[in-house]
């Protein structure tokens, strides 16, 4: 689905992403973890076409991302960032409807099919009650849910998330990630998400990529990555590692 080969990004002579290679299989969910400044957001920007790599090749479905038009790319990938959507005074319905944009021709207007899809997605994300409320009157968590709904309406094959849960309380964190998980199971969505919370990353991702100083340190299952020595080296913290009582997944205690 997604394939990065020796991708580097240099800004002002400073390498911020350095020789990164990894690939993501269709239907998998990959967690991108690492300390501040590791280059995680830069990777997301490179994949979503916001920035160009200095070197290397990023292929989406076998084709160089640079060759995709912005619109074509948006038909296949949706992105959710920490900032989410600006509090712009339009209704939740209209904001979610904008997810249909990449599927419409220049002169084409949204039709019944699009409206029905939006209604359906609002239902799945529990936003039906907010339908006519203005985006700028929602809380940060609610707005993030609108962003997820907008991404769903976009019907991508791949979803990129950059710290989507940063501003959310634990309930909403879990809620957003569950929405993504269900979506992944239902439609075979491919997910690449940047998460700071290693416990959530271990629980919600099939595989983890650990980055540090622009480089990939390790790729593997949570069993492999959430290990005392690795984390000490990279994060300069010495966490205790325990097992989740229900799922037996490794979790950390600071």
């Amino acid at each position, binding site marked *: 689905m997604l394939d990065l080969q020796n991708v580097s990004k240099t800004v002002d002579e400073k390498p911020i992403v350095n020789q990164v290679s990894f690939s993501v299989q269709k239907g998998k969910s990959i967690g991108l973890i690492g300390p501040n400044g590791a280059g995680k957001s830069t990777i997301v920007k490179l994949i*979503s*076409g*916001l920035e160009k790599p200095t070197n290397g090749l990023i292929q989406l479905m076998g084709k160089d991302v640079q060759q995709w*038009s*912005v*619109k*074509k*790319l*948006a*038909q296949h*990938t*949706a*992105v959710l*960032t920490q*900032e*989410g*959507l*600006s509090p*712009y*005074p*339009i*209704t939740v*319905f*209209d*904001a979610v*409807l*904008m*997810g249909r*944009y*990449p599927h*419409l021709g*220049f*002169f084409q207007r949204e039709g019944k099919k699009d*409206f029905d899809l939006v209604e359906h997605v609002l239902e799945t994300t529990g936003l039906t009650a907010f339908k*006519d409320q*203005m985006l*700028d*009157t929602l809380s940060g968590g609610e707005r993030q849910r609108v*962003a997820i709904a*907008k991404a769903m309406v*976009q019907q991508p094959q791949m979803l990129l998330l950059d710290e989507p849960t940063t501003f959310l309380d634990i309930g909403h964190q879990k809620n957003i990630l569950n929405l993504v998980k269900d979506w992944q199971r239902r439609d075979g969505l491919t997910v690449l998400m940047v998460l700071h919370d290693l416990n959530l990353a271990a629980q919600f991702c099939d595989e983890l990529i650990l980055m540090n100083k622009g480089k990939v340190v390790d790729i593997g299952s949570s069993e492999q990555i959430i290990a005392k020595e690795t984390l000490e080296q990279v994060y300069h913290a010495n966490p205790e590692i325990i097992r989740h009582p229900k799922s037996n997944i490794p979790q950390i205690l600071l």
Partner: protein
Amino acid sequence: MKNRQSKLWIWFPIFSLILLMSMSLSVTLGAANISWQLVWQIIFSKIPGLNLFNQASWSASTETIVWDIRLPRVLLGAVVGAALALAGAIYQGVLRNPLADPFILGVSSGASFGAALVFVFGWQVFWLGQFTLPAVAFLFGFLSLLIVYFLSRVNNKVRLETIILAGVVVQSFVGACLSLVLALSNEQLQTIVFWMMGSLALTDWSYNQIIFPIILSISVISTFFIKELNMLGLGEEAAHHSGVSVQRTRFILLILASIITGAAVSVSGAIGFVGLVVPHIIRLMFGADYRVVLPLSIIGGAIFLVGADAFARTILAPREIPLGVVTAFLGAPFFGYLLRRAKRGYF
């Protein structure tokens, strides 16, 4: 969605009707007293093949006043008002800045400078004739925009903060050139200053014939970008992720807005406040959705300027007040009132 659309279906006809009424009312105003029925009779009599009133019940001079003097002026007012308000709405959306107005990127400074040069040197490009002034003004306005745009282009990207700052820089530089020309000019000083304050006096049909097609076609083209304008409102990156080519869309919209600004300024001078205030008034009344803001700003701007011009030429008749003075006089207090009344942030 649906209620938004219906809002437009209700208000667009109402606004259009108000515009028609204010235009015909404005034609009746002036030294010669002419009823609005007569105004419409004269207009209809001009439509070929339509002989509703075959024996003319009005004098030739009345016809001249209505058809050749007042009507072109009122129409030009409507067109210029529509253009400035549309440009303002686009600039505010693209630059994501509530203080943006059609002049923020230096178009009007450039146009004024060009106009001043024409006045001072008495340029007359022979094949342009009386259109030398608007043509030169337009050219200079557009040049200023291009300078601003390329000043703010770094690595093929234009950042919003940079473009606004570049606008300030170019505006002050061109402003200084303009002041220099003003200082060196003698008897033309008053003409230039009056031109800069904006006026619709001395218009005939020929100005309308040039500017009307430009503004009509750009209004239509800009409605194709309503979706994009709304999406830019959700943030630049969010728009990119939803498939909008942000840089290209922005460039096209800025060029469109600047062409209409340049066209409007070149025939009527730099009439301030319309482009800033009208889109905001529409937003305060109907929300920020560009599907409503754009069409209603166009009509609203036309209404506003037709009204302001009627004011400008009647209130101290036979003297005329500069139009820019009237727009600020009427616009600022109304805007202030709406701002105080608004319950929440709306931009």
